[in-house]
């Protein structure tokens, strides 16, 4: 359990990231080198574009600490043992993610149903009886219940045999687009995918695809999440400064997100 005492100790020991940024003339992002649409080492992701914006306000060159965004990402980047390996901020974490100190959310997205347009299909609820007969694709993360919400909620509804798993982790054989490709080419009837991934890859298909937000029923896990940026715990000064930049740049950030097809959710649950 977290104790107040431990928190205080950690706060005292924390590396002052803001000072680091000023000293080095760098403002380093912890980022995944191979994770479109979010980021890659060719700077093609929407987080890369947003990082460029933010760097302008910090009057520095954006620079990156590359690390696979898997288990241990924060520990190996922001909290790295060696100072040279540490970065100043992360661009995408759930709001109030407790491994870092988060800004206010800069976007909210949702898991979406993805299925071909124009085939008379309309799915807008996990309780639609049609789901029991369809071949459904989901992303898998690992065991021990560390899986995306669709995996749990389909299972809870007894929808098991007709569910197909896709690895969340990038590999040459299984790029993140594979689940959307499978919908487009008919290998599966429908997929339930995190919005930014679905939006980006659906646009690259020749087949028109519908993206419909997945609503949470009573007692269900959430399907919509607020996404924020994060700095090292205890570094309030840097967060304040980063927050000011986010507030100022929010319209431009939102435009970048839209350009990448990220389904953005308002509190009404509607995609805009």
């Amino acid at each position, binding site marked *: 359990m977290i104790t107040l005492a431990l928190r205080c100790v950690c706060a005292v020991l924390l590396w002052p990231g803001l000072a680091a940024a000023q000293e080095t003339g760098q403002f380093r992002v912890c980022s995944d080198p191979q994770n479109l649409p979010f980021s890659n080492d060719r700077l093609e992701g929407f987080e890369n574009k947003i990082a460029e914006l933010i760097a302008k306000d910090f009057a520095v060159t954006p620079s990156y600490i590359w690390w696979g965004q898997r*288990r241990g990402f924060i520990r190996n980047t922001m909290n790295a*043992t060696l100072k040279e390996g540490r970065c100043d901020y992360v661009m995408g974490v759930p709001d109030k993610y*407790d491994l870092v100190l988060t800004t206010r959310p800069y976007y909210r997205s949702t898991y979406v149903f993805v299925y071909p347009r124009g085939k008379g299909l309309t799915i807008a609820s996990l309780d639609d009886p049609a789901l029991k007969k369809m071949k459904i694709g989901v992303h898998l*993360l690992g065991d021990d219940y560390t899986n995306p919400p669709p995996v749990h909620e389909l299972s809870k509804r007894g929808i098991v045999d007709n569910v197909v798993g896709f690895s969340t982790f990038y*590999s040459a054989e299984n790029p993140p687009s594979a689940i959307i490709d499978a919908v487009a080419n008919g290998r599966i009837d429908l997929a339930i995918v995190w919005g930014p991934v679905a939006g980006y890859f659906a646009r690259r298909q020749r087949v028109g695809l519908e993206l419909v937000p997945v609503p949470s029923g009573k007692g269900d896990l959430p399907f919509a999440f607020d996404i924020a940026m994060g700095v090292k715990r205890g570094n309030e000064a840097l967060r304040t400064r980063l927050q000011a930049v986010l507030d100022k740049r929010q319209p431009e950030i939102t435009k970048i997100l839209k350009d990448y097809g990220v389904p953005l959710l308002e509190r009404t649950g509607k995609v805009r």
Partner: protein
Amino acid sequence: MKRWSSLFLVVGACGLASAAACSRTTSDSPADATAAAASSADNDWSMPNKNQSATRYSAVSEITADNVKNLKVAWSFSTGVLRGHEGEPIVVGSTMYVHTPFPNNVYALDLSKEGAPVKWKYTPKQDAAVIPVACCDTVNRGVTYSNGKIFLNQLDTHTVALDAETGKELWKVKQGDYRNGQTMTSAPMVVKDKVISGVSGGEFGVRGFVTANDINTGKQVWRMYSTGPEEEVGFPGSVETWKGDEWKRGGGTTWGWYSYDPELDLFYHGTGNPGSWNPDQRPGDNKYSMTIFARNPDTGKAAWAYQKTPHDAWDYDGINENVLVDLNINGSMRKVLVNFDRNGFSYVLDRKTGELLQANPFVFVNWAKGVDLKSGRPIEDPAKRTSSTQNTKDICPSAMGGKNQQPVSYSPRTGYFYVPTNNLCMDYEGVEVKYQQGQPYVGAIVVSKPGPGGNRGEFIAWDPTTGKKVWGIKEELSAWGGALSTAGDVVFYGTMEGWLKAVNAKTGDILWKFKTPSGIIGNPMTYVGPDGKQYVAVLSGIGGWSGIGVAADMSLDDPTAGLGAIGAFKDLANFSNQGGVLTVFTLP
């Protein structure tokens, strides 16, 4: 999962060992008797668990229960690597071979010279991008020796053969792709003319396999999977225990230790937890995850397979070592295999047929009331089966296991097994938002915590014929390092605080201890040096799953970080700091 080898016929041991050492070859244990002629000299320690039977028992007896109190440091050696140091060095003749965690350096140290200077160093080139793929620290469990070669498994899935004399790379083969979640952390094993290796990466849904490569060329001879059709598993009955084609990401990784019975010509290995679906999503027994396999080393085909934990819901990765001994069971001598599993049960099987003879809890267990010896299945407590739709509290043992990878030792002199255990339970509870690869999700919180009594570990002596504990030494932290027993009736083990302890094999009295520079998750070993004296060596260097908090300098605020390890070991930094050091002891 995580979740998270070896013995061989050392035909060429004499190549490096002195002639005198070779002539002194004797049997290490009853099970070894037939292999004695071909086994390494008692003076050496040429494979990770000392011999093909994996007993970690040395017939060397200069250090005894009477004189061990005089043990002093002879020399020490920094590995230059900070992360967790599992496994042990090996010794062949007058050379010691020391491995490190990633980047998997290998040092050859010249024992014939004062202070054991470096003879050669091998530094593999590996992409640092492999580090995030390793689940539970960047550990490596050691190298092995055969026919003038040192064999190493690298984290990035390369198996490498080095010239033992010069360190020159003789061949190198790629067994998998870390970008698909595959890594290698286990020590290879040589059986006859083949080097056998396994794969890690269960938490990424890696489909486990074992591979045999020719020791001279590296050419793959066969590969057998843990799940799938008979021709790919070498045994029938897997596919039908999975939904659809889910066996393709079925897990059952093979990152543990291996043993070999030359008379039966079978080698033994375990398989890990089933792949990436939640238990609710992978109905069926999920064979052959969580299984002990007996395989033919020439073909890879299995003579039998015994699944310890069908349809795992706890991450009781079944990869622990299988020790081959001959025991009097119910009045008759049997050739058996003894396995202390993560799930808390100690299994005794007929190693020829796979018949289950005994299964007794060696730590506090509550997920099952016992094991039905007829069917071989655990008698589960339904209240302790985890599910994604409910909180489950106080499951014992925790996912870290009643015993993890730290190998046991068996002394034929006492007839006891010496078992480093964990006393940990866990809660699967609540939900918290997590994030990987750009995806937010809600996961169960897995928190490991001390079991009954509050001590997190105990080093025990276990009588396999009665299935009962003989004595135990309670440890504040888990006993995460392996055991060593010797003909001097001394047993050695290390603690996460960094103590190397020497214990009376019969009584459990602590006879001597020394605080090494860092926590010990490695395994003590012993050998006779070129000067004719007995030495005991151990790697310290905290890390591994239990020590990930210190090894990776993780925030202590999150008890679920490190797969629940931080919850159980958040005070570890009070005891131990990072740093790989080999410490070698001898009598004055």
